[in-house]
């Protein structure tokens, strides 16, 4: 484990929040894409 010293909270917090935000964005992007694809396929099969 890398020694972070007295600023461990700040460093881990910054990484944690940033990665969580990026993860949320990626998840939202993929979910929206999957939904759009599903609905489009349904519509094309249906119509």
């Amino acid at each position, binding site marked *: 484990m890398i*020694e*972070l010293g007295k600023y461990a909270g*700040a460093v881990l917090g910054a990484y944690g929040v*940033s990665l969580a935000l*990026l993860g949320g964005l990626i998840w*939202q992007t993929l979910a*929206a*894409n999957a939904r*759009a694809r599903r609905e*489009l396929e349904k519509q094309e099969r249906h119509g």
Partner: protein
Amino acid sequence: MSIWEYANPVKFMRTSGAVLPWVVAGAAVCTVTGLVWGFSTPDDYRQGSTVKIVFLHVPAAMMAINIWVMMLVTSLIWLIRRHHVSALAAKAAAPIGAVMTVIGLITGAVWGQPMWGTWWEWDPRLTSFLILLLFYIGYIALWSAVEDPDSAADLTGVLCLVGSVFALLSRYAVFFWNQGLHQGASLSVQSGERMSAVYRYPLYLTMLGFGLLFLSLLLVRTRTEIRRRRLAALQAREMRA
């Protein structure tokens, strides 16, 4: 063969689908390697371990500005040449830019707390980023408020043009309002002389990684928008039939 061929949605879908896996792989490799490498760098003698935050802060801040510029270019292409993919790309880019701005602000605040002893400083750089975030929010809100997709693209395009001028103007006005009292250059890449190679190379890698990450998110989101548009068109046709 010209770049405008990609303005055709079908062609765009085919090409972006083929390119996407490579971009995603590149983004994952560069971002993860860069962040892990950056995380394992030795502590700075002055900033201690907080120097590691730079590998998130600088790429995010850089992307936040570049994404707005990209939105400006695609909005102009839409307004001048009426290519739908261009307008949809601008729409797809805005939330990514907003998230990048928030990451830049938050990492800056977390870094500033131990370093400057305060979470927030009304410093020109920080303030202009906050203003940039406001412009992103306004832009996204306008997209979601207008129902007709072409009108929305037109209005947001005009807003993006006016907003760009004012974002730039605010940046200089803010410098006039409050001269930066802190070390501004220690964060920028131009200070390469002061930033040793130990930090510089992983930083370049994360910058590349964030760029590719943006590109892959942008491609996926634009594909989503194209599919939604096609779905709406099909449904409209069904209603008429």
